[in-house]
């Protein structure tokens, strides 16, 4: 099974970083380990999650969609969190930790801008300096989130190298971090990167799964859903909700964009600090992912997901951009909930797999709201 606390998920994980960053990763590991068992830290984080971010998030029974699809759909409403997605759970945890370690600045990468906005929010709250790297392509398709970050006092820097999307924003954030590692915490936004990030970020998002387990028990007479499904780019929201059901019989399903299906191709590689599945050519050059959703436009995946896939504990299924566009409209029309394009991937899978899922209960992590995507969808649909 490996040991997540030591950075190993089966054969995956590790700490593949330049030597300069090794002490910082080790310091972060020690600090998180200590904080996570400190009741005062946990109490402060819980207070922020409840009274600032608005947890616990609701569990919504989707009667109309259930009727249309023939399976019972429960939505875990991470879209209702402050800043509009699950990302705030992790960011509040890391910002508290950064302050505890005496770091005065944050640096982060962002794809769709959700993690960037969450990080900028925490930086404003904790009065820390913040720089967010975002691919030039994503800056163009997520203008609203760029402005949001700037409004919150964060400097948004454009990643102009490579594919100019999330992968390149991670490269730039890491290059930035190497130079300022003594004063700055890298607030990584997914369950990827070097140890301790995949483990730590999952633990900060575990609250999604823990809440959902209890909420499901309340509506399912103590039972669990047949299926727990979430979209997967790096895989943070999926890791969070899976954590609450890993020891149950629920089928775990990660939905990948067809243009960024790292698990679907199942070729192991090493990039951005960890050993995991990676889209790459025969020489090991990383390929560019292509997805309608900036948040899933990433050629890798967190090492825990590679492990869950390799051991068969979770299934990873691709959906196409066209299916996502349909799903985006389906949920909006049937339930009055406009999902983030990332989260719409899960709805797209439900719609596609409706015969297979007939009569089952499916818990969907609705990881974010779609406000940020409305302008892009307006262009696509008009």
């Amino acid at each position, binding site marked *: 099974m490996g040991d997540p606390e030591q950075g190993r998920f089966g054969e995956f994980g*590790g*700490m*593949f*970083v*330049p*030597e*300069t*960053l*090794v*002490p*910082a990763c080790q310091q972060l590991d020690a600090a998180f380990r200590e904080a996570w068992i400190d009741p005062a830290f946990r109490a402060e984080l819980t207070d922020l999650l409840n009274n600032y971010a608005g947890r616990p998030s609701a569990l919504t029974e989707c009667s109309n969609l259930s009727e249309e699809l023939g399976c019972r759909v429960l939505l875990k409403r991470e879209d209702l969190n402050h800043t509009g997605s699950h990302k705030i759970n992790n960011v509040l945890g890391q910002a508290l930790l950064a302050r505890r370690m005496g770091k005065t600045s944050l640096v982060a990468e962002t794809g769709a801008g959700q993690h960037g906005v969450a990080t900028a929010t925490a930086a404003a709250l904790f009065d820390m300096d913040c720089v967010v790297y975002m691919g030039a392509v994503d800056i163009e398709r997520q203008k609203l989130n760029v402005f949001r970050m700037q409004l919150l006092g964060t400097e948004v820097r454009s990643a102009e*190298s*490579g594919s100019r999307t999330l*992968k390149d924003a991670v*490269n730039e954030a*890491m*290059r930035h971090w*190497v*130079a*300022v*590692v*003594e004063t700055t915490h890298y607030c990584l936004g997914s369950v990827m990167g070097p140890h301790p990030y995949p483990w730590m970020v999952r633990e900060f998002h575990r609250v999604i799964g823990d809440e959902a387990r209890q909420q499901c028990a309340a509506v399912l007479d103590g039972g669990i859903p047949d299926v727990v499904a979430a979209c997967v780019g790096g895989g943070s929201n999926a890791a969070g909700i899976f954590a609450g059901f890993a020891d149950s019989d629920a089928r775990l399903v990660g939905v990948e964009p067809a243009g960024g299906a790292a698990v679907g191709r199942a070729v*192991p*590689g*090493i*990039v*951005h*600090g960890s*050993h995991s599945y*990676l889209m*790459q050519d*025969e*020489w*090991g*050059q*990383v390929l560019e992912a292509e997805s309608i959703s900036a948040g899933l436009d990433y050629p890798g995946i967190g090492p825990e997901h590679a492990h869950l896939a390799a051991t068969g504990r979770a299934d990873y299924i691709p959906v196409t951009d066209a299916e996502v566009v349909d799903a985006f409209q389906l949920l909006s029309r049937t339930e009055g909930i406009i999902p983030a394009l990332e989260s719409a991937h899960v709805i797209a899978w439900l719609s596609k797999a409706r015969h297979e899922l007939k009569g089952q209960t499916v818990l969907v992590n609705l990881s974010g709201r779609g406000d940020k995507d409305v302008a892009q969808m307006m262009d696509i649909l008009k």
Partner: protein
Amino acid sequence: MSGVLEATLRSRRDSGGKCLVPYLTGGLGPDWLDTVHAVAAAGADAIEIGVPFSDPGMDGPTIQEANDIALEAGVTPQSILDSLRGADIGVPTAVMTYGNIAYRMGWERFASMLVDSGVSGCILPDIPLEEVGPWAEAADGAGVETVMLAAPTAPDERLPRICRRSHGFVYAVGLLGITGVRAELAASAKIIAGRLKNVTDKPVLVGVGVGTPAQAVEVSTVADGVVVGSAVVQRMLDRAGPEGVGELVAEFRAALDGP
């Protein structure tokens, strides 16, 4: 294990000289192999050959650009190593690339390809001590000298462990940051060199942020020599040709040799 890279650098040092190891990007321009020869002739003790990677996390804009140009031209690890095979460069070479290039090919296969191509050493900057095991086993088995990096952020107890694992030389990272030429030598460069010299007899060369002959001389008052990367690669990007790059390396050589 000891190899020709370490023996060559030790010999330079033990005869009172300072080591000069230029870095250049493999496959950058059609005449890159001529540049390798020119650099050897200009007084390099050994040469680092960069094998381009799509996501070079330790590299600044100059080497990133060189990587992109070479990759767009269709360069592969295989084509670079094929070119080096039998090239009779006259000084030892070390390949510098990222872990995934070696991992994708297979640790053992990559190590034996280096040997077949006449390459003595290998530097993988994203494979630190904690992860080096599988690669080190393959490299040691094939007789490839694995050069480890040591950074200013390392606590004292870490440095002897890095030095023990390092072969060829110990690569002291001169500053907190990525590769690239800086206006001045960082204070951290001489400090890390001194800390390493205190714990190892192996040659200690400083790279990252050593961009001018004057900086090379300054840091070599403590270190055994320097790795010069971005300054050399910038000359290649400026289309100085083998001769122009050789001239730059000769300037470093002359400065390090002193009056």
